[in-house]
């Protein structure tokens, strides 16, 4: 106790050139002023491009006029929201959004896990590497190219899918024009593109599983399948739960870009989701306040989902985001 006091006093003497009032944080900040200088520009970016739009989200409660800006327009309360809830599109949009996202979650979430578990089983490093390299590659394909590929493959005139359909003796099918096929095409192509990328984290988690567990299992005479069930799956659980929480938090944000590109006049009855609607009404139709309200509603639902799933995960397991 005493010795620290002495040290403190020494320090004070040494720093006597600096004003005595600067203590604690202020002193630290002055000594590391260069770090604060560094952070200034990125911080300005965050405030301008992230926080000002958040502040601007209040136009959902206003009748926005571009001349008066975010805060100058008149308050209209919840009018924009009630307009949305009462519009005939409301339930269709909710339904389409939920179907596509729950379907994505149900198929897209386990797929990389299964791939990782399978890759973890095989001993041939060469084959493992080949499968990993090939399945990882589609991740780098841009959304525009991905959607063009889907349209080309499924086109009734030239796609190879059509070749297969005809080889099976069936009539050509215009896949992109049939509303009930839309969600499957969207979800399965997502799996095709993302499975290898998604498997990487799980492979890392599997590599971290204690090898003594496998030896113990061997001694106990467990089969390969039992090892997968009792060692591998619990081993990747923490990673899986975290990714699941993140996915659920995005449930209402199904990929705008891809869906928008995949839409055509024939399939809009199942392909119109909240984000594409916001874009069309808001930016193309210049109906700023209404579409901001739709968007805000969407963000709030997402946030609630994220918070509740995280809460739930913390209650039932050891893993959670925070």
């Amino acid at each position, binding site marked *: 106790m005493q010795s620290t006091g002495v040290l403190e006093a020494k320090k004070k003497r040494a720093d006597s050139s600096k004003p005595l009032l600067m203590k604690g944080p202020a002193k630290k900040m002055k000594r590391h002023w260069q770090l604060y200088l560094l952070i200034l520009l*990125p911080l300005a970016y965050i405030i301008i491009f992230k926080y000002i739009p958040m502040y601007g989200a209040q136009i959902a409660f206003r009748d926005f006029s571009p001349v008066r800006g975010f805060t100058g327009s008149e308050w209209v309360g919840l009018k924009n929201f009630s307009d949305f809830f009462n519009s005939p599109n409301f339930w269709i949009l909710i339904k389409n959004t939920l179907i596509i996202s729950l379907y994505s979650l149900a198929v897209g979430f386990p797929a990389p896990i299964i791939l990782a578990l399978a890759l973890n089983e095989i001993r041939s490093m060469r084959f493992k590497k080949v499968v990993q390299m090939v399945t990882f590659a589609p991740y780098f394909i841009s959304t525009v190219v991905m959607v063009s590929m889907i349209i*080309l493959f499924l086109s009734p005139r030239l796609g190879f899918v059509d070749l297969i359909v005809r080889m099976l003796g069936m009539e050509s099918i215009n896949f992109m024009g049939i509303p009930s096929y839309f969600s499957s095409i969207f979800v399965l192509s997502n799996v095709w593109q993302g499975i290898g990328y998604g498997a990487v984290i799980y492979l890392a988690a599997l590599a971290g599983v204690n090898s003594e567990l496998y030896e113990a299992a061997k001694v106990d005479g467990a089969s390969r399948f039992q090892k997968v069930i009792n060692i591998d799956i619990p081993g990747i659980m923490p990673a899986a739960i975290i990714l699941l929480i993140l996915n659920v938090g995005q449930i209402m944000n199904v990929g705008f870009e891809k869906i928008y590109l995949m839409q055509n006049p024939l399939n809009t009855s199942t392909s119109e989701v909240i984000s594409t609607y916001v874009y069309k009404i808001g930016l193309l139709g210049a109906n700023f306040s209404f579409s901001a309200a739709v968007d805000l509603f969407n963000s709030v639902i997402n946030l609630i989902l994220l918070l509740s799933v995280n809460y739930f995960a913390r209650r039932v397991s050891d893993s959670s985001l925070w």
Partner: protein
Amino acid sequence: MNKSIAIRESLGDRLFLFLVYAFLAVVLIIVLYPLIYIVSSSFSSPRAVISGKVWLFPVEPSLAGYKAIFSNPQILTGYANSLFYTFFGVLINVSMTVMLAYPLSKSTFYGRGFIMLLLVITMMFSGGLIPYYLTVKSLGILDTRWAMLLPGALAVWQVIIARTFFQSTIPKELGEASELDGCSDFGFLWRIVLPLSKPILAVLVLMYAVGHWNAYFDALIFLKSQELFPLQIILRNILILNSIDASMMVDANQMAAMQGLRDLLKFSLIVVATLPVLALYPFVQKYFVQGIMIGSLKG
């Protein structure tokens, strides 16, 4: 008794292993086949493509599609624009990311908890598309090249990855020692931290570069002038909206040939647009995997 169990189990194991291999083989074929089909089609003749003769290898090999691409000024401009946006975008992205991530990695940095909170909030909640668009509009950069560089100048997720890397690989003692030697924070960052951080810099460059090369949404909402369009917008016009400038066709009188060339062009265009990323692929994959893992450390 004991022996028979052992045999039965190993049989079961062998069957299981066989199923695993079969499953992986099927996955391999499903992922690989469309890629091969695209490349093979792009090197075939227009006639072979529209009559559905291509199924594995190129039929009647030709470079007609590629010739059409490289004689189209629109596509070339788009290519050049995408290179421009990718180069300068990555430059801005990586500098901004390091400028934010490095101070946040210092445990002595006062206010770091608060700034981290500010960052994490933006990952969970956003103002939405319309206020975002209006903000960019009020900055007066709509329909300029800045609109492709500034709004995406930083990705919070990459900041967190970089911060985690700095925290776990740059020993604290190094900073303290250099401070005693009178090295400034700038000097330490520039001369010590950055040279030691090549792996994470590579990860950032690659992730941001792939993002810029493939980006299409910002261009869709912020750009109106044709001459500013990145490749992805041109691709969308040609591949998805099916609008091809008639002047690019060699012989407009021959409708059939035109249609064939138009279809062939799509395959070649897909290859050409994906080439820059795929050329880097082996390199990219290694670092990407590293990046995903660093990111997952901190969940």
